[in-house]
């Protein structure tokens, strides 16, 4: 079977209500692909963080745009691809959190990108023809 035939995908509009659709999609796609619960949990959190970022920062406030998610399984790796047509995003603009900082020193925010990297084995971003493409890979 070609890898394409194993991929599941969904098209969404970037509103916070889309998060629920993301979870339903992942639950169904993970079950269809027979992924372990630990992999599903890691994918859920990473997808949540990525989609929340797109909703909040990629498009102008109050102007939702298209968002596409797809999940595939090949060679023992689950690959989640998230594409949007909003603004370019550079992870270098997000400072890494200082996990040893005290409560007073710990800045609020900046954890989403960090959690994605911790939950996934690989996180790759690219931009082509106005499309932001985020590829997240988790070994199962």
């Amino acid at each position, binding site marked *: 079977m070609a890898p394409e035939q194993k991929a599941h995908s969904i098209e969404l509009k970037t509103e916070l209500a889309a998060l*629920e659709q993301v979870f339903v999609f992942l639950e169904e796609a993970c079950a269809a692909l027979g992924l372990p619960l630990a992999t599903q949990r890691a994918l859920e959190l990473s997808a949540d*963080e990525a989609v*929340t970022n797109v*909703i909040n920062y990629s498009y102008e406030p109050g102007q939702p745009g298209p968002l596409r998610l797809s999940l595939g399984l090949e060679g023992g790796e689950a690959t989640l691809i998230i594409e949007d047509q909003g603004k370019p995003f550079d992870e270098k603009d997000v400072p890494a959190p200082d996990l040893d900082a005290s*409560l007073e020193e710990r800045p*609020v925010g900046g954890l989403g990108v960090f*959690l994605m990297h911790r939950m996934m084995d690989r996180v790759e971003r690219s931009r082509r023809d106005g499309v932001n493409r985020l590829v997240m890979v988790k070994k199962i």
Partner: protein
Amino acid sequence: MEISQNQKNDVTVVALAGRFDAQSAGNAEETLKKVLEADGTKILIDMSQVEYISSAGLRVLLSTAKKLAGVSGKLVLCGLKPYVREVFEVAGFTSIFMILPDEAQGLQAF
């Protein structure tokens, strides 16, 4: 997410249930803000019914803890499910929050 609130002596117990994500974070933040505005400086958040937390939920907890520290108050969390605790550990939150197993022990921490 469902949010309920009740007073145990001078401690305000806020019980959260469901998914603590970007969609529900606003409501939780609003509830906690109102407790603070009503001079509640001792808050126990019961997380025993929280099945999931993302950075949006962590952000609300951190900002509440900071505000309480600023008024010499105290925030205690209790009842974290294993998966929620795992996210706390990854985010380095277990060292900056007081986390107790259940509400009874949480109330004793004040």
